[in-house]
């Protein structure tokens, strides 16, 4: 009988262990227990999310893959070209060892993309840290950014955007979500499977070392109090080797004798090889003695479970490996035949002639699926009503000026330039809109298309209400794409949540999926791939539910993409919104509430049908080339969006409105479905015609300097200054 301690190390429960015995009809040996620990981990097995994931909208007329079937999801963009994309998290490794954790997060997601035969054309990332005034948080933030920079820049893939957000909920538990986008000929997407018995299983790239053992089961799937101890479970990256792998793998992907490719990620060879066999409906025989190792004396257990980076597995038609080996040799890459796909449904593991294990693949890849509805039964979310401070409900000019300035000193609002300037965003020469806008834009060479990408998510709103927050995150992702003039056609998600075995965590997940499903139907945007990182909690409490959305939109190459900011004085300023000043609820979960009231409470709302209409409207205005700038009103509310629109070209604005008595909600509330734009007055009639019947109004004029309302003037220079000064401490 196995000890509880061992089970804990593998993140298996006693009842899961009993289930293994029941299914196998015997006790697993030590190696097999390791396999189960890895494959039944949350990270590989999606025990708590699989049921929900099956409910998600993952298909549209553009999708080319079945969700969860391949390393990433693929979307057809026409001209026989497809986009492959996915988000992956590396939260726990980054908490333990920020530089390598973040670096290898980039490495892992890039391998998922080229495993499908796609050339990686963009990286984005969403980063969450706690307050920079704390030295440990500072060290984490700095390490993560340097890690992404150090690894990503080596690869020749532009890092075109994302977000960086600070909230104390991420204390001891930073989030590092990396997104990669690839481009591939639609008819030659590689699959991660073998074709027939006799196909060879070959490992390429790095030698297998003792690093990262129990990464999937330990780091990624447990509450990680005391996980600083788990530093040896974090892998060390070699971006140079990754670059060689990209080029070599894309070269061999053109060869007919290559039948499948798979990234060796979490749970190493175990997960990669066994999942390949499962997808192929074949059995598999592996000889661990054939795996090139870094040091002598590694046990079969260590070899099977190592998470050494920069390794790929390929399936090759029997005896036809000569060209493939020649190509790999050209790139100085090691490769070795380590096994063979066989008839049947078992994985057989040998160490030379010594038989170690024979286990049905189906059992290994079918962990229990927990029903979150049962776990969350009886959970009643603690909905705190928003308390509006009295001083916010009578007009107070000095307070408005003071608070506006302080908003522009928030690390969440200031320019993120000091981060994205550490990442190459020009390489591959496709970057039409660089990081720093609502979305970034790439042109696709040899086509008439451009694609817009964004990667972010508001977690405070999800903390207030996970369902509406999830809807808002998808709406905002699509809005970011739409204000560039592109039509959103595909999403990928990074789910970062707390403990799903607790009622609260389970509830948040269920509600998030409810929100996703509603929003995806309305916007007709499938979620084509994604990643779930659960058990995110520091030493005190769990993080706010943080569903990150990576979005892609498509537009014609001749689109006149509006600027993020105003262009010249004299242009008119318009707003698309139901109410310019939003509603009373706008402060709920807002940045204003975080900074000044230091709490998270209230009610949020979104009208998705209206959201859809304003997004279609803004795209129409852009397609007709009627507007010069467009910017989504989100974090920091109307005031922040207005100042940022001015900041771009150091201009001002005169708004022909009186700031109302409830100035805080009006200026800083974060009500959804609002877009600020500017235009030449001569286009006003055409704009009115297109926006006929839709809520919009002309609210003012672009000026040379300062923000002027009818009842208050706010100097713009100090805000521009603190915006451009950047973070409170130099990341």
């Amino acid at each position, binding site marked *: 009988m196995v000890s509880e301690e061992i089970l804990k190390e593998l993140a298996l429960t006693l009842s899961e262990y009993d289930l293994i015995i029941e299914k196998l009809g015997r006790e697993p040996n030590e190696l097999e227990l390791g396999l189960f620990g890895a494959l039944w981990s949350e990270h590989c097995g999606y025990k708590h999310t699989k049921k929900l994931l099956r409910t998600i909208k993952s298909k549209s007329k553009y999708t080319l893959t079945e969700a969860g079937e391949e390393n990433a999801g693929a979307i057809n963009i026409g001209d026989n070209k497809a986009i492959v994309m996915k988000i992956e998290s590396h939260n726990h490794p980054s908490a333990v060892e920020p530089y390598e954790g973040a670096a290898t997060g980039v490495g892992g997601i890039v391998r998922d993309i080229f495993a499908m035969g796609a050339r990686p054309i963009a990286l984005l990332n969403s980063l969450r840290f706690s307050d920079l005034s704390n030295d440990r948080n500072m060290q984490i933030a700095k390490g993560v950014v340097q890690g992404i*920079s*150090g690894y990503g820049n080596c690869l020749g893939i532009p890092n075109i955007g994302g977000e960086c957000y600070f909230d104390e909920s991420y204390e001891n538990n930073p989030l590092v979500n990396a997104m990669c986008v690839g481009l591939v000929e639609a008819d030659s997407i590689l699959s991660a499977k073998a074709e027939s018995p006799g196909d060879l299983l070959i490992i390429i790239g790095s030698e297998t070392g003792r690093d990262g053992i129990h990464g999937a089961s330990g780091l990624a799937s447990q509450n990680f109090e005391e996980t600083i101890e788990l530093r040896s479970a974090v892998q060390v990256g070699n971006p*140079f080797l990754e*670059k060689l792998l990209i080029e070599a793998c894309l070269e061999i992907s053109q060869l007919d004798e290559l039948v499948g490719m798979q990234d060796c990620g979490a749970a190493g060879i175990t997960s990669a090889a066994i999942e390949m066999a499962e997808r192929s409906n074949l059995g598999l025989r592996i000889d661990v003695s054939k795996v090139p190792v870094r040091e002598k004396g590694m046990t079969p257990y260590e070899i099977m479970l190592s998470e050494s980076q920069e390794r790929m597995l390929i399936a090759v038609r029997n005896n036809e490996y000569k060209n493939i080996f020649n190509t790999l040799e050209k790139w100085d890459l090691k490769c070795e035949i380590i096994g063979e796909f066989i008839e049947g449904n078992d994985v057989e593991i040998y160490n030379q002639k010594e038989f170690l294990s024979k286990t049905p693949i189906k059992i290994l890849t079918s962990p229990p699926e927990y029903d979150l509805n049962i776990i969350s039964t009886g959970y009643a979310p603690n909905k705190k009503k928003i308390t509006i401070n009295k001083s916010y409900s009578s007009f107070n000019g000095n307070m408005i000026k003071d608070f506006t300035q302080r908003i522009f000193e928030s690390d969440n609002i200031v320019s993120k330039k000091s981060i994205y*300037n550490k*990442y*190459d965003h*020009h390489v591959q*020469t496709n970057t039409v809109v660089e990081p720093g806008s609502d979305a970034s834009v790439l042109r696709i*060479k040899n086509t008439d298309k451009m694609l817009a990408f964004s990667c972010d998510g508001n977690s405070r709103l999800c903390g207030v209400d996970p369902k509406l927050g999830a809807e808002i995150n998808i709406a905002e992702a699509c809005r970011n794409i739409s204000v560039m003039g592109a039509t959103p056609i595909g999403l990928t998600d990074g789910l970062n949540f707390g403990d799903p075995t607790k009622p609260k965590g389970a509830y948040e997940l269920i509600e998030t999926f409810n929100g996703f499903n509603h929003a995806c139907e309305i916007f007709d945007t499938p979620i084509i791939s994604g990643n779930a990182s659960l058990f995110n909690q520091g030493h005190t409490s769990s993080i706010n539910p943080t569903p990150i959305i990576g979005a892609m939109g498509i537009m014609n190459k001749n689109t006149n993409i509006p600027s993020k900011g105003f262009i010249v004085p004299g242009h008119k300023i318009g707003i698309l919104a139901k109410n310019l000043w939003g509603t009373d609820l706008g402060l709920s979960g807002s940045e204003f509430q975080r900074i000044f009231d230091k709490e998270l409470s209230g009610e949020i709302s979104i009208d998705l049908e209206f959201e859809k209409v304003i997004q279609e409207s803004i795209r129409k205005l852009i397609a007709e080339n009627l507007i010069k700038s467009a910017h989504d009103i989100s974090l920091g509310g109307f005031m922040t969006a207005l100042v940022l629109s001015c900041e771009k070209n150091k201009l001002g604005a005169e708004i022909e409105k009186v700031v109302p008595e409830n100035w805080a909600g009006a200026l800083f509330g974060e009500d959804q479905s609002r877009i600020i734009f500017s235009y030449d007055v001569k286009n006003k009639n055409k704009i009115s015609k297109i926006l006929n019947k839709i809520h919009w109004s002309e609210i003012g004029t672009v000026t040379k300097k300062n923000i002027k309302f009818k009842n208050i003037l706010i100097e713009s220079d100090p805000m521009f200054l603190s915006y451009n000064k950047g973070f409170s401490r130099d990341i």
Partner: protein
Amino acid sequence: MKIGIVVFPGTWSESDTFYATKDILGFQTEYIWHKDQKLNNLDLVVLPGGFSYGDYLRTGAIASFSPIMEDVIKFANNGGPVIGICNGFQILCESKLLPGILIRNKNLSFICEWSNLLVNNQSKFTDEYQNKEVIKIPISHGEGNYQADRYTIDQLEDENRIIFRYCSNDGTVNEINNPNGSINNIAGITNKAGNVLGMMPHPEKASEKLIGGDDGLTIFKSIMKKVSDG
């Protein structure tokens, strides 16, 4: 007329350069694998940017010993035009085709941004520019801080071999407009004979208005015109 772009393991700007010289400018262009022994009838050799050999040991150090470099050095010493961009510049310094060295940026971080360059048009690579023209070309490097001993710097200045300097929008060369700490704001230099150019900014990334500007193309146009004029 043919341009050759050398590809080392870890190079990543070869296809951007190819796109600029072949697809945009229409010059015949080919890749040269670093393990090749001979250059094949070329009129211009480009050592492109990237992280050759992971920049292990020192940037450009291992690449300078690649088999093809022997012939590149011979080609350069016979007056053949060579451009080293970013990592290529570092390789040229390691190969002693250019003096000096590129060390860590003064802020110790990688920098990617559009830089303004003040052009000296007294070279084969720049004579299609106006003299003292300010052009915009992106930089993307962690180790672009050009340093050399005083004697070498004086020589570069005296012989008018500093071809590009980091500057402001209006061409002011000063400390504020020096992104990486390079001595005298040096962004690009030539060898004594004027046939080898090393520069940290990436002209191949400034190849089309759609992606932010096409100021970089003139370098390739200038040198290829010189070649065709003989």
